[in-house]
Structure formats: structure tokens, C-alpha cells
């Protein structure tokens, strides 16, 4: 521990390096083998999925081929075909890309709203904060899954945009609550008061003084949220309330297992997607938990 601390201090003394949250978290992450492997796996997956899907022709993959229904894995179809004769392997790539994309989009959207609401609410406090947190509590109690499903069914022109907006509308509360409680602690510190006496506006203090001090916690939460959002999206697609059928998601592939015949005899259709979801979520969680430990350790040390 001492050696590590010493090294960190040494690096910090160098005027060219800044101890941004990223560098500190990265340093901690490198020590955690499992998390590092997870991160490498995630990186490779992202490169592979987005790279290959550039080459793959989505239209061709989702085209129904009646002469190749339920083909087991072969040299032509590495993971066989589904009930429409579509290549499962290709769908796996496109599905992963779609699931990752929506996961990232929803995480960024919920993160932005959550950070804004939480920061403003916690920083100013008072009656508005009280009311905002009552509303947040209320939405956090609700069975979000069913309401999201109902809204998905209610939207007339259903698209990926409306899907991500519906998910966002019901998922920003957790991060808002967290950021709010941290902002509440942070604003009591004297540097915030000092900024006031130095003539900085509330807006400036919130975003340039308080927010940087919440960056570690934001990075950790967003990482864990990404895993949760991918899980929720694939779950909804599995139930048939996620992506439209024309854009396959990992959950869509898993949903073919609803056919008992497919579940029992045609593992190649649903099992790879299931395992991929599992491994993706495990990896993202590993990274997130390692980052979380890193920030905790920092607090203990500081």
C-alpha cells in the first residue's frame, strides 16, 4: 500500500500529470486482474461488434430464407439458422451491437438527467429538493418494468427513439438520488462557500466546482447502470417489448427459446446470445465493482 501511495504521490508531483478521476481509477483497475480481463474482453467485443457489423449486411441477415430453416451449426452458418432461416451468428453480432448501443444511449441519457436533477436538488436543497426527492422516491417504488411495457404498447409509431425515451423516463431516478445525496454533502464544504465569496455564480459552482468532485462516483454508477440497462433492454426484447423485430437484439435471439422445441433441441439459436448477455453483464459489473472498490479505497486512504 505504501509503495503504491508513494508512487501516486510521485506522479502527482509531476506538473504535467493531473490526478483526474480517470487516471486514478485506471491505476486501481490495473491491479484487479479479473476486472482488467473483463475490460479487455469488453474492448475486444466492442471493436469486433461495431467493426464486423460495418461489413455485415443487416438486410441480408434478417432476410427470411425458407430453404434454410433451423439449420444446425455448419461451415456456412457457424451458429446455424433460426425459424426464418436467418444466420444466427450474424444476428448475434448485430444484436450485440444494438443492445450495446441502446444500453449506452440510455445510460448517457439517464445519467445526464439524473446528474442535473440530483445536482440542482442537492445543491439548492429546500422545499424544491424535498418535493423532487418525494417524486423520485415514488418512481423508485413503482414496478417500472410493467409501466415501461405498457408505454411501449401505447406508443403508436414505435421506434428505437421512442423505446430509449420510455426507458429513460423511468430510469433516471436512481442516479439522481445518489448524486443528490453526494451534492448535499459536498456543498457543505468550505470550498463551495469560498467560491461564493469569490464571486462565482451558483451555476458555475455547481458545474465547475462541485461536479468534478463527484466524477468518480458518476463513473462508477454509470458503469453499473450500463450493465443494468443492457439487462433490462434484452429482458424487454425477450418479452417482445424491446426492439422492433426488424432490428434484432440479444434479447430477441433469446426469445426464440419461448418455443419449447427450440429451447430443448436447438440450443444454437438462443444459448449463445444468453451466454453473451451473461458474460457482457458480468464483465461490465466486474469493471464497475472494481472501480467502486477503487473509490472506496481512496476514501479510506484520504
Amino acid at each position, binding site marked *: 500500500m505504501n509503495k503504491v501511495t508513494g508512487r501516486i*504521490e510521485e506522479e*502527482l*508531483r509531476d*506538473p*504535467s500529470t*493531473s*490526478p483526474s478521476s480517470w487516471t486514478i481509477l485506471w491505476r486501481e483497475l490495473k491491479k484487479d486482474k479479473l476486472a482488467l480481463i473483463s475490460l479487455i474482453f469488453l474492448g475486444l467485443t466492442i471493436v469486433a461488434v461495431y467493426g464486423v457489423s460495418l461489413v455485415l449486411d443487416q438486410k441480408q441477415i434478417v432476410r427470411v430464407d425458407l430453404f434454410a430453416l433451423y439449420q444446425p451449426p455448419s461451415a456456412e452458418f457457424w451458429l446455424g439458422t433460426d425459424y426464418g432461416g436467418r444466420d444466427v451468428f450474424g444476428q448475434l453480432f448485430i444484436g450485440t451491437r444494438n443492445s450495446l448501443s441502446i444500453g449506452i444511449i440510455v445510460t448517457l441519457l439517464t445519467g445526464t438527467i439524473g446528474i442535473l436533477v440530483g445536482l440542482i436538488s442537492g445543491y439548492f436543497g429546500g422545499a424544491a429538493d424535498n418535493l423532487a426527492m418525494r417524486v423520485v422516491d415514488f418512481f423508485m417504488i413503482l414496478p417500472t418494468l410493467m409501466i415501461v411495457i405498457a408505454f411501449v404498447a401505447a406508443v403508436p409509431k414505435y421506434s428505437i427513439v421512442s423505446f430509449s425515451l420510455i426507458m429513460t423516463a423511468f430510469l433516471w431516478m436512481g442516479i439522481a438520488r445518489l448524486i443528490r445525496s453526494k451534492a448535499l454533502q459536498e456543498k457543505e*464544504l*468550505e*470550498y463551495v*462557500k*469560498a*467560491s*461564493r*465569496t*469569490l*464571486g*462565482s*455564480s*451558483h451555476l458555475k459552482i455547481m458545474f465547475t*466546482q462541485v461536479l*468534478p*468532485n463527484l*466524477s468518480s462516483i458518476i463513473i462508477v454508477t454509470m458503469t453499473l447502470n450500463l450493465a443494468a440497462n443492457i439487462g433490462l433492454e434484452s429482458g424487454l426484447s425477450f418479452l417482445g417489448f424491446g426492439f422492433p423485430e426488424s432490428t434484432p437484439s440479444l434479447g430477441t435471439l433469446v426469445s426464440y427459446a419461448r418455443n419449447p422445441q427450440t429451447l430443448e433441441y436447438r440450443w444454437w439459436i438462443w444459448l449463445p446470445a444468453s451466454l453473451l448477455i451473461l458474460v457482457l453483464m458480468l464483465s461490465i459489473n466486474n469493471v464497475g465493482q472494481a472501480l467502486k472498490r477503487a473509490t472506496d479505497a481512496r476514501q479510506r486512504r484520504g
Partner: protein
Amino acid sequence: MALLEVRDLKVYFPVYGGIFRRIVDRIKAVDGVNLTIEPGHTYGLVGESGSGKTTTGRAIIGLNPITSGQILFQGEDIGWGMRGHQSRFRKDIQMIFQDPYSSLNPKKRILDIVSEPLRNFEKLTPAEEKRRVQELLAQVGLSSETIYKYPHEFSGGQRQRIGIARAIALKPKLIIADEPVSSLDVSVQAQVLNFMQDIQKELHLTYLFISHDLGIIRHMCDHIGIMYRGRYVEQGTTREIFENPQHIYTKRLLAAIPDLDPSQRGKRQRQRQLIYQEYDKEFSQYFDHDGLAYALRPLSDTHSAAIPGRGQG
């Protein structure tokens, strides 16, 4: 003309209670404080924790809302003006904070910390800004390479110097120093205090010096106000307070100052006991039935004390 005049300042905090969390009571943190500070002087505000001295300082600079009263700066009412972030009084009144650890943002470089007021009030190019910050750091005795470092790389005393550099960046006239050395090692305290005096001469600063430590107050201040539970019990020049204290509370505070001369120890100990006995005995004469101090009565041009109406005690 006085640089700062505070007239009948009151700061009350609401207490919430009951099922609906409504205001059920108010804590009178500052309850009718009057004080006047002449330019170039150092005014000491003394009291135990919870006496309202810090709240007074924060109310003057606009960190706490004022319930009632007036604050005049160079004869002009700054009123609620201090609460707006771009008030013109901001440049003239600055603050040095108690805790040099939490008063500097840990995520900011020294350059960003010291230049924060400059960015708010002066339009400087980055190069000018950097030069100004280096000048300010030189003024507080820190080398110019420190601008790219972060607060945690400095000792407490160094941090407090950075805090001072930031406070003098806008060339203020009045600096409110809220227990500026109480969280520093004793060995560093004197260093920072002397430095504050040097810089006061150099920049013609006026200080409102808030502290619970009478030794430091005596060293720094020419006028003193003593607070107890939100009210003044006595105020006067340092000489008047230390050599001719009138209020029993002031006497008690003075008696509690440790004496460094061991030969006097026994004598001091006996004196202290006497004053403590007197304090317990005569408490009800000096405070009303709520345990609060009476209104101040003038004893001389500069000296006044909250002593009961029947004359000097």
C-alpha cells in the same frame, strides 16, 4: 469614516418540527450585534463555539441570510447586495476560511484556485492571468512552479497561504478571517499570523478577525468584541478589555488564558478560582432569566459592556 458598520444585525435560523415539518421555533444565532471597524485596523470577534461570531462574519459577507439589521460599507448600505454573486462589494470584502483542507477544491490546480476571483471580475488573457497568480503566490511566499500542483500536495500552513493569496487577488479593503489558524499546528500558527500582519501593512488591509483564542486576539487586534449566545457582552480596545474587563463573562474568559510563567502558576490558579466562584454567584445579575446578556452600556468612548443597570459592578 468607518470602513464597516454593522447595525443591529440579527440572524435567526428556523427550526422545523411536527408532522408537517413547519417552522416551530427560531434559533437566534446573532441577536442584535453592532460593530464598527475603522480602516487599517484589526477588529477581533471573540466567543466560545456557538456564540454567533462565525455567523456574524458569514452574514457580513453574504453567506448567511440576514433576518434584520444593516451592514454599511464605507457608509453605503450593502444590504442584500452581498448575496448576488456579482455584487460590487464582493471585490472589497473577502474571506479567509478556517479549514485550509476543505476550503480549497481538491480537484483544482492552484492556478485555477487562485485565479477564480480574477476570472469572475477581471478579463485577463491566460498569460496575464498566469502572471498575476504567480505574483500573488510570490506575495504569500510560494514559488511560482506551484501553480500546476493540487492542494493535497501542500501542508496546512501552505494551504492557508494559498487561501490568503486567493483572498487578496481582487485587492479587497476588508478581509474577514474566520479562525484562520485554529486548524494549524501551533508552530505554524505564529508564522501565518505574522504573515497576515505583514500583508496588512503592505496592502492597507482591514481585518475582521474571528477567533476563540484570546492570546491570538491580543496579538492581532486593536479592538475587540466579545460575544455570548448571539449577543455582545463587552466591546472595547484591546487594552480596555484586557486590563479593565467589566463583564463577568469577559473576566472568566481572560482568567482561562493559560499563563506561560511557571512562577505565577499558583497565584493565577487562585485568581481563576475566585473568578469562577464569582461567575457562578453573580451569573443571574449579569444575564437575564433566559441566560442572555443585557444591552450594552457605554463606559467610555470606546468601551461598553452589557452590565446591569445599577452602575458599574
